[in-house]
């Protein structure tokens, strides 16, 4: 059984959502810079939900069972760290802003509108809607917002171990309640991702949590089964490892959901999700890619797939101090030849069971800053061989190329427990053999791999996947500041122009200007190829025919689900 271990849980987490998304999650700079730019983008932002919910024949009542491959951990928004917890957490807690499934546009949730930055470039004013209440009848006010943020960054709450503390301490100058309904955020300096990271956030009820000592907040059972919430569903019961039960919140500001109850059922792995979709034991879930075809002819089941905001890529270690193989990867011609030798279309077809698209840039197609750079590397085995010949890497008697005594051989690692990646590395090794490179493969435990990539940087080549956040800032991937110490530039790629673009873009609040900067970045990265992208994997869902309006999309896979109140079951049971 390889799909049930936490490695693949992390992968699921990676493939479906990244932790920062819960903060930056969905939208942000998009919508507000749309206001700045005006015009068409304004219409997009106003239009908001481009996924259609049809409630003409909606039936009231009934339940739905969602199958998920990991149990919840902590559903408190200030602690949420995994997909499963986010799924439940954002059904329980409403947020100030939410996100459209397909476009990734920010939409107002508890706020009246998506805020735009003031002329001082650091102040943001958020106004809450009228008549919004907690599930115990108390009104949701600006004090709740301020309290939630204080828990995360105020020194008096230092005992609260929120993972967002260091980020907030770095960027947030103050958060104040101007009146019952209005909150003003001030950043320390212009910071483009601010709305996505911090205003796109859920709120805690102050009147409930402030009765606890700060240290007690970390271990309160309300972190798993909150008593007072503001979202579409109210938590009822958590049977560890089995299921999480929720019931309809009659005080939800959007109105009562059609469903009476929601069950989150824990299933050991994605293949079992597929089995339970077939038998009807669960209504919705993400099955294993390998089961996609077998779900095609199941009665009473629909399938859905979409390109998720994520990508699979391989990182070449460019640091000669860490590995002698840097002599191979250090040559730009070699890097280009290696990518040219990969038949990415065939890979997407066979390794991903057809459920992926070949990559063409350094960000996924779902990102609003995506562009198709001029430099591309279409698959061409002959050309790859020529490039290597021209670069002085000559084939030896055993068919392996060498130059200046350095043979073209290295070890390619990926994480265990992910069948797709384990197959992928053997396919890559095989394709590179065709151009005279001797690649050995080695699946490694995920924790080791993360340590190797982000701390010790002792590796030759690693294949991994990244789940993108809604904000396009990729400083952690490509900046020279992000080498080691837990950051993700494992290749040790250093390009001052790239650093400059990244630094500029993160403080550029104008959407069009920002997009231009990231497009320049993509052009450079496609030239330099420190860590080329191979595919954009798709996310897949099995949805029972009795469930309507289950509008999951690239930016709404697990959370948030602004359309949840329109979901109904045709039999009302």
């Amino acid at each position, binding site marked *: 059984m390889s799909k049930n271990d936490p490695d693949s849980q992390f992968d699921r987490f990676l493939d479906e959502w990244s932790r920062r998304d819960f903060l930056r999650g969905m939208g942000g700079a998009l919508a507000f810079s749309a206001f700045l730019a005006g015009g068409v983008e304004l219409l997009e932002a106003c239009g908001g939900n481009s996924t259609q919910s049809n409630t003409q024949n909606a039936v009231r009542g009934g339940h739905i069972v969602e199958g998920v491959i990991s149990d919840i951990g902590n559903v408190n928004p200030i602690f949420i760290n995994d997909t499963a917890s986010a799924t439940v957490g954002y059904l329980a807690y409403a947020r100030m802003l939410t996100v459209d499934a397909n476009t990734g546009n920010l939409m107002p949730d508890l706020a009246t509108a998506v805020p735009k930055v003031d002329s001082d470039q650091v102040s943001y004013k958020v106004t809450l809607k009228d008549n919004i209440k907690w599930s115990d009848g108390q009104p949701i006010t600006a004090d709740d917002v301020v309290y939630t943020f204080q828990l995360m960054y105020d020194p008096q709450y230092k005992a609260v171990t929120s993972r967002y503390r260091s980020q907030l301490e770095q960027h947030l100058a103050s958060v104040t309640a101007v009146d019952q309904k209005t909150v003003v955020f001030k950043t320390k300096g212009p910071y483009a991702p601010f709305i996505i990271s911090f205003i796109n956030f859920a709120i805690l009820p102050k009147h409930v949590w402030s009765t606890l000592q700060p240290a007690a907040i970390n271990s309160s059972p309300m972190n798993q089964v909150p008593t007072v919430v503001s979202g579409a569903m109210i938590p009822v019961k958590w049977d560890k490892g089995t299921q999480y039960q929720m019931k309809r919140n009659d005080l939800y500001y959007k109105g009562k959901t059609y469903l009476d109850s929601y069950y989150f059922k824990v299933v050991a792995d994605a293949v079992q999700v597929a089995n339970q979709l*077939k038998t009807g034991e669960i209504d919705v879930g993400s099955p294993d890619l390998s089961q996609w075809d077998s779900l095609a002819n199941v009665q009473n089941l629909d399938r859905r797939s979409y390109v998720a905001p994520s990508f699979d890529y391989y990182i070449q270690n460019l640091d000669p101090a860490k590995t002698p193989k840097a002599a191979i990867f250090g040559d730009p011609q070699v890097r280009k030849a290696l990518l040219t030798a990969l038949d990415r279309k065939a890979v997407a077809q066979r390794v991903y069971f057809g459920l992926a698209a070949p990559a063409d840039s350094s960000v996924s197609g779902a990102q609003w800053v995506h562009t198709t750079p001029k430099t591309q590397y279409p698959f061409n085995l002959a050309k790859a061989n020529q490039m290597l010949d021209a670069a002085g890497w000559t084939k030896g008697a055993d068919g392996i190329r060498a130059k200046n005594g350095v043979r073209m051989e290295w070890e390619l690692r990926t994480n265990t427990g992910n069948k797709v990646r384990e197959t992928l590395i053997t396919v890559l090794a095989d394709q590179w053999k065709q151009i005279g490179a001797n690649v050995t493969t080695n699946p490694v435990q995920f924790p080791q791999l993360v340590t190797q990539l982000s*701390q010790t940087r002792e590796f030759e080549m690693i294949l991994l996947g990244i789940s993108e956040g809604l904000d396009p800032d990729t400083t*952690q991937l490509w900046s020279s500041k992000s080498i080691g110490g837990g950051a*993700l530039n494992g290749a040790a790629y250093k390009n001052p122009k790239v650093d400059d673009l990244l630094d500029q873009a993160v403080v550029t609040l104008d959407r069009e200007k920002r997009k231009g900067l990231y497009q320049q970045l993509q052009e450079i990265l496609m030239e330099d190829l420190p860590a080329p992208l191979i595919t954009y994997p798709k996310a897949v869902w099995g949805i029972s025919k009795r469930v309507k309006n289950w509008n999951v999309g690239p930016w709404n896979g697990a959370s948030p689900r602004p359309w949840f109140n329109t979901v109904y079951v045709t039999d009302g049971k």
Partner: protein
Amino acid sequence: MLAKFIVRRALAAIPVVVGVTVITFVLMHSTAGAYVPGLSLNPNLTAQEVQLLRSQLGLDQPLWIQYLNWTGVAWLMQHVGLGGVLIGAHDITPGILEGSFGQSMVDGTAVTSQVFDRLPNTILLTVTAILIGIVLSIPLGVIAAVRRGTRTDHLLTGVSVAGVAVPQFWLGLLLILVFSVQLHAWGLPFLPSGGVITPFTGGDLIDRLAHLLMPATVLSFVYLAIWSRFTRSSMVEVLSQDYIRTARAKGMGDRRVRYVHALRNAIIPLVTLVGLELPGLVSGGLVVEVVFSWPGIGLLAYQRALAYDYTMVLGIVTLASILVVAGNLVADVMYAALDPRIRLA
């Protein structure tokens, strides 16, 4: 005498449990290196955050301090004035001394609450499997013994060999495929393919039994295989005894001879075998739990070990080793109680 025996065994168990915790602790930390549990490849993760996480989880302290903190010894040391020895320590808690095995490093839930909430599921599974094993292996063993050398005997031998040879995960997956997926596809009543209860409609006895049936059967297969062989050979031996011949000579019916006289004596070694399974009650069902999404502590330990959730794994291993030692003790006492020829040393 019995009391002395139990006390002596309990005292001898303490260094065993402590040793287990030390070994587990060292192994986990040496394989994980600098990894922070709960960490993922997040493109927005900064180095400061990783540092903060390490500090919050106490992983930036020296290893020996982390261990002492977990056992509560560090807290004791602070209270008797030896706190100065603990260089680099922060956030010392009473730990085990207050009955707390800490919080999970991955999701913050209390270790004891996770373990004790899931332990009954595991025990239910293994006890049911053992019961099925006993109920089926006795008649099978008796039949094989009585008909030894015939085709029935050979058939049952084949079943035994299969029971030991067939991997549990293969058998489990096969049963799911047939009794869950296929039966459903044919429109027939089908068995649930995993979990403990059906959400919403389930939770009653029939539902729970339906969920329990397949996993317990798969788990019992191995027990069945071994115990039926054992019962068979034990029966064969007993059936050749003089007192059996006497009973037959007196005109006693076959059935009475077999089940009243012979079986009673043949069972005793079986009790030993079953008793040997007591320690395995807690850990035996791991593969089955994984295949059937059975929420027991086997599945929990497996998932958390791979996630490097140090505190959870340490907690599970410690509690499991205590239970194993206790199980051994109970088995020994039970054996001595049943067979007067045995003396407890």
